[in-house]
């Protein structure tokens, strides 16, 4: 089983790198797989991944968390507020605590009072937005270096690691432009270039979550609260407690994601989350409510974001288009082999359109890359939604003793 899983993972990684490599070779755009790109993609992906992980915790316990965005906003604020006064680690802590408060609020509304979870989450988003804007004006306007919509700079830095003995030779290898090998080198070097301790923490949280939720009795009980809380209750699981724990922890993770954002931009700024809580939610669905797929989804968002933002020669988006076409063709091929003709034709057609776009235009505006992750998410959901399976009692209000 484990062997099967790891071989599948290696296969997927191999395919992904091959496609990247083909694209890089055709476009001759080394940025696509460079050390710096990958390192930056990790920075962009981590907050989204944390939001996605937060979504997994809440929804596995049966509570839909649309309030992720709000909890993330609280996290960005907490990090800015504590960070500029008492240093960066206090900021991380405050981000987590503020997020947890948001989670607690959702738990009170959705678990104790059984309010519709999407409604409760929407209310939290609203409240978090207003509260942070208000407090920013009250607390930051007269602070040195602060303003009405932003905190003073956060003091100190999260340690980052660069292992030069790995990065330098691999980066040199990347610049040689050898098919596959150079791209693998760039990707690998990116993992050890300015790697933030918070990114490592994010990775560890994914590993811990996979273990806790799927390999322990605690995880089984928590997930049973999301699959069939009435049955779980009849077996003695304290469903309400598990839901509370899961939703509060969800808030903590979202808050950490927010703190990561503020720390990465060295200040709290109004609107810094820019919908990343919602994107995290999308990666969670994309990843079938599991950590591995969620991580992959966040990496996609982070990677595309990076290419869009470092697009100096206006060529990266063009590369992305080609990459998208290659991926679509590959999926179309797989579908053909699985005898799903209609889906296959759809994918091949889309791929052809993108190839056509690639060859007809010399460059693409950044807006194309701006919407690409969302379109990709929709495409994934549209093709895979039959294979995606949310927890059975996700979103269903639970009251002890209510028969079902």
């Amino acid at each position, binding site marked *: 089983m484990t062997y099967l899983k790891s071989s599948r993972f290696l296969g997927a990684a191999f395919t992904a790198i091959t496609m990247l490599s083909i694209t890089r070779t055709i476009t001759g755009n080394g940025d696509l797989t460079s050390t710096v790109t990958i390192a930056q993609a990790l920075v962009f992906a981590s907050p989204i991944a944390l939001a996605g992980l937060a979504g997994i915790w809440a929804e596995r316990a049966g509570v839909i968390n649309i309030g992720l965005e709000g909890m993330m906003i609280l996290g960005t604020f907490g990090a800015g507020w504590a960070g500029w006064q008492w240093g960066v680690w206090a900021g991380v802590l405050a981000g987590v605590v503020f997020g947890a408060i948001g989670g607690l609020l959702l738990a009170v509304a959705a678990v104790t009072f059984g309010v519709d979870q999407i409604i409760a989450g929407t209310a939290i988003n*609203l409240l978090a937005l207003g509260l942070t*804007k208000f407090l920013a*004006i009250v607390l930051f306007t007269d602070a040195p270096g602060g303003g009405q919509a932003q905190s003073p700079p956060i003091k100190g830095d999260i340690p980052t690691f660069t292992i030069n003995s790995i990065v330098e030779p691999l980066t040199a290898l990347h610049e040689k432009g050898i098919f596959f090998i150079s791209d693998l080198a760039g990707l690998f070097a990116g993992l050890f270039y300015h790697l933030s301790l918070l990114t490592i923490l994010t990775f560890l949280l994914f590993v811990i979550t996979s273990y806790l939720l799927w390999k322990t009795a605690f995880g089984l009980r928590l997930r049973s609260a999301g699959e069939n809380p009435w049955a779980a209750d009849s077996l003695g699981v304290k469903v309400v407690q598990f839901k509370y724990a899961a939703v509060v922890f969800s808030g903590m993770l979202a808050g950490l994601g927010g703190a990561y954002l503020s720390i990465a931009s060295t200040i709290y700024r109004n609107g810094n989350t820019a919908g990343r809580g919602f994107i995290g939610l999308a990666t969670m669905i994309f990843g079938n409510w599991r950590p591995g797929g969620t991580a992959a989804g966040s990496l996609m968002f982070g990677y595309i974001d990076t290419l869009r933002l470092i697009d100096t020669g206006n060529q990266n988006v063009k590369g992305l288009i080609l990459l998208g076409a290659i991926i679509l063709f590959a999926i179309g091929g797989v579908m053909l082999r699985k005898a799903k003709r209609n889906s296959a034709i759809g994918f091949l057609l889309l791929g052809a359109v993108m190839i056509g776009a690639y060859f007809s235009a010399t460059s693409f505006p950044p807006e194309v890359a701006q919407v690409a992750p969302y379109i990709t998410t929709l495409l994934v959901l549209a093709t895979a939604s039959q294979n995606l399976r949310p927890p059975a009692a996700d979103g269903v209000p639970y009251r002890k003793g209510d028969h079902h």
Partner: protein
Amino acid sequence: MNLRRIGTSLIAPAIGLLISMAVTALILSVIGASVSTVFSSMWTYGTSPRAMSLMVNLATIYFLSALAVSIGFKMNLFNIGVNGQYVLGALAAAVVASNLTFPKVASVSIAILAAMIVGALWAGIAAWLKVARGVSEVISTIMLNFIAIGIISYIIVRTGIGTETSLNVRGTKPIPESGMLRGLAFIDPGTPIYGFFFISIVIGIGYWFLLNRTRFGFDLRATGKSASAARTSGVQSNRMIYLTMLLSGAVAGLVGLPYLLGDTGTYSLQFPTDWGFTGIAIALLGRNNPIGIALGAILWAFLDISSGQLILEGVPREISTIMQGLIVIVVVISYEIVRRYQVKSEQTSVAKALAKQEASV
């Protein structure tokens, strides 16, 4: 009976308002502001003719947005995509109307039609994804919101449709005066009430009629109450999803028009893009009832507008956003408590009646 129902449905918002005012007072005193000065300043400015006009105008926008959301809510469809639907609708209306030199009635009607069609089509994507591919509309509409913003910035920044407007922001070509719907200044001489105010009243009545007096409305509400029961009685649920989403999107397409046709005359990059979320909150407050929604929209707009001069008291106007958030969360919780209380009291009264019957036998 009916009076009692109205009474209980008013209790929850009243509790929400009181608790949110109490918490707001607490926050104000923590930051060292005078609670009574703040509230009285909000009341004094909020009831001035100018503020009242602004409030009616803003409430018109919120009303339409909440109406769009609640059409979906009635069928348990969460149209979180009102944002995307209305920005695209407003852009379409701006583009169309700026190229027309027809008489006002024709020009405005065409702009309205364009906005509704575009809004409906954008919502239709989510409906298709739900019906044909099983994708939850909650997540697809959120994605479609982001995509709409991207499309708009592409159109305005990179195509010939966008030009430099007077404010040094890129936007669509200004709509000629013959295509505007500026409205009448009957509360405050300097601040006209949007012409769309009257249109939205008509739409509100239409909403009520459609839902409560037509076969379609019955099917829609039935599906919302119990999809399986409705299906058994012959309602085609897929068709209902399409129709509901298209209708919701069509109304959503109108949300930006009061402001576009009554004020700016151009869709620029500064056009507000988050009225859809406000609509969700107000639909919740108003319990999907057109009168409730109207009251909710007025309350919301009052808080928005009346806080406009708080900065003179040294208090950020965002205090009103906090109040709004608190109101929503407390109101939804108290609706739930009131509902539980009603269920319980019904159960006790039924049990009592049964016990009486048994005793008399």
